């Protein structure tokens, strides 16, 4: 049994708009699992369900199990006891996730006292210990300081310390390095990696930056239009890519492109819950789309052990050997309509 098991989860809001459509995902203990995708792909909504949070007025089908217990069927009181202790979360913007008018100590000790029942002094000592764990310089004086004293990277460390307070088994990290400088990002990635080795905590890491995924995640789920487009180990997804969307995403990155050549953007606009094409949601932007892509929603099929993709055309399947040695750009492949 995995630590987190999301089983065929669908989330709808008003007007029957579907945010997440039949997503299944597992996270094992001590594993860093990435969820990648553009804005509106449903990655945050999926991850939030692991805390039992759904968007306002949403209805959900499927199961979200932590240690085998379904969160969607749980009463609110029980859910509250799980949030923060079993599963904790760190948000994107460290400037807004801390209260500007309370000192760090007050903010860090509040849930330590509630969840672990420690006294004021013991909680304060535990908070200092946490700040030490995330390598904040001078943790004791930091506790009595206010958030404005700290830089973005230091605030994000404090936010991580706060999430670690009750030794969660699973940490949801939603774009936690997106707002930070690369130099600070490198430090946070290093910290997360160290924490999971030291504490055995699992991490769901959400970002649209595949280069960050490459250095931090063990396994990766790529989402598009509320569904999983491709999943597998990090090297399966990034080095033996099978889904045209993943391929296009890699090619659009400055890190993936050839130096001196123009970047290759994905044509068109990303699908959103308001504007989701029929059939495969990616078909209007896909260089390989055939007629059936416009009518049928492709199933997520397992292609190799642990590696799945939802594409009926599978344009890179026959070229797997080549794809493994170097990643061909879309333009270097033959006419997809002939190939399929």
């Amino acid at each position, binding site marked *: 049994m995995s630590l987190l098991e999301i089983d065929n989860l669908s989330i709808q809001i008003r007007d029957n708009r579907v945010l997440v459509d039949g997503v299944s995902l597992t996270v094992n203990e001590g594993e860093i699992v990435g969820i990648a995708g553009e804005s509106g792909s449903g990655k945050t909504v999926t991850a939030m369900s692991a805390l039992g949070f759904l968007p306002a007025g949403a209805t959900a089908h499927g199961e979200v199990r932590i240690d085998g217990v379904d969160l969607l069927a749980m009463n609110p009181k029980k859910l509250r006891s799980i949030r923060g202790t079993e599963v904790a979360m760190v948000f994107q913007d460290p400037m807004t996730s801390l209260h500007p008018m309370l000192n760090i100590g007050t903010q860090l000790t509040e849930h330590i006292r509630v969840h672990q029942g420690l006294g004021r002094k013991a909680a304060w000592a535990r908070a200092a210990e946490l700040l030490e764990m995330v390598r904040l310089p001078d943790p004791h004086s930091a506790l009595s300081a206010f958030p404005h004293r700290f830089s973005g990277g*230091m605030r994000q460390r404090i936010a991580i310390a706060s999430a670690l307070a009750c030794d969660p088994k699973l940490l949801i990290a939603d774009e936690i390095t997106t707002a930070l400088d*690369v130099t600070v*990002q*490198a*430090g946070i990635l290093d910290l997360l990696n160290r924490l999971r080795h030291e504490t055995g905590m699992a991490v769901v890491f959400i970002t649209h*930056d595949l280069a*960050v995924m490459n250095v931090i995640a063990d396994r990766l789920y790529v989402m598009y239009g509320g569904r999983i487009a491709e999943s597998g180990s990090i090297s399966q997804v990034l080095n033996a890519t099978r889904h045209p969307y993943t391929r296009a995403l*890699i090619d659009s990155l400055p890190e993936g492109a050839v130096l001196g050549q*123009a970047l290759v953007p994905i044509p068109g606009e990303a699908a959103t819950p308001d504007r989701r094409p029929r059939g495969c949601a990616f078909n209007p932007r896909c260089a390989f789309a055939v007629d059936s892509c416009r009518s049928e929603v492709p199933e997520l099929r397992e292609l190799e052990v642990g590696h799945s993709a939802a594409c009926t055309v599978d344009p890179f399947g026959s070229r797997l050997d080549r794809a493994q040695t170097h990643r061909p750009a879309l333009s270097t492949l033959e006419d997809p309509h002939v190939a399929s």
Partner: protein
Amino acid sequence: MSLLEVRDVVVDYKTPGRPAVRAVAGASLEVGAGEIVGLVGESGCGKSTLGRCIVGLQKLSSGTVTLNGVPVTPVGRRVRPQADLGLQMVFQDPYSSLNPRRRIWRQVADGLINNRSDSTTRRTAIELLEAVGLSAADADRYPHEFSGGQRQRIAIARALAPKPSVIVADEAVSALDASTQAQVANTLVDLARDRKMGLLFISHDLSVIRHIADKVAVMYLGRIVETAPTASLWESRLHPYTDALVRAIPSLEPNAPAPVAPSGEVPDPAAPPSGCRFHPRCPVAMERCGTDDPALVMIDDTRAAACWHQPAGGPAVRLASLELQRRPRFDNESERQR
């Protein structure tokens, strides 16, 4: 003489009762016609302040900014001199830089020098929207009907309206999704090349700059510490700070090494370190670095650096050769090796 020249710009932010913060401490820069210059640095290094100085949104404490040899007047209550319209800016957040209650063609038309409500104005605005990849059908829409990338295009169209000779793009793609970043960055590059405009592309993301810029200027705590043609910067770095920036970028290569964070935090700009401003974090700092402040000097024909390891006029010293003399590294590195 270059199109845009920035000479020894100093900007102090003064708050009553506090020491002045020197956000820019003597920065010089040139941008030629059709040239794309990337300005890169961490947050708080003064790159945005420098960008705002160039377009006149921020008063200089000392130094000069000239466009075609004419000094740029800071924006005030009076009508801007016609010549200063040649400098336009694209801001980071396309959600707050457009008015949500006005049709987009009218906002683009705001930038036109002869802005009258007639059909010519509308036609010109539509032409500008088409130049950035939007269509005539979009002209009567409101900003909320567009995605972030499209909004940034609208902001670019507005900046193009007065036919500028230099565009300053301050983190113009940073708030966008990875795939949209490429679209908007390509649009800016194509426009700069086609219209022979200079483009100063300010970003914290060296990997984007690497792709679009001809020349890169690296800024640290108010100073420009290295300038170089983009290709040679990627091959080897002259300043240890630039090297630290490059090593912190995560890579897409299979089995890529983990990105390395430079030791320490960015110091408070109100109390910068003595000597070279990077010396407390520098892996190859010498005794001299703590006392003497190095000036930005030309190392060879195209590259300049402000580092005591690099003698003026060259030959350039490879940072790798200094590696052997590195002092004990920061603790997270020993952690990784364990």
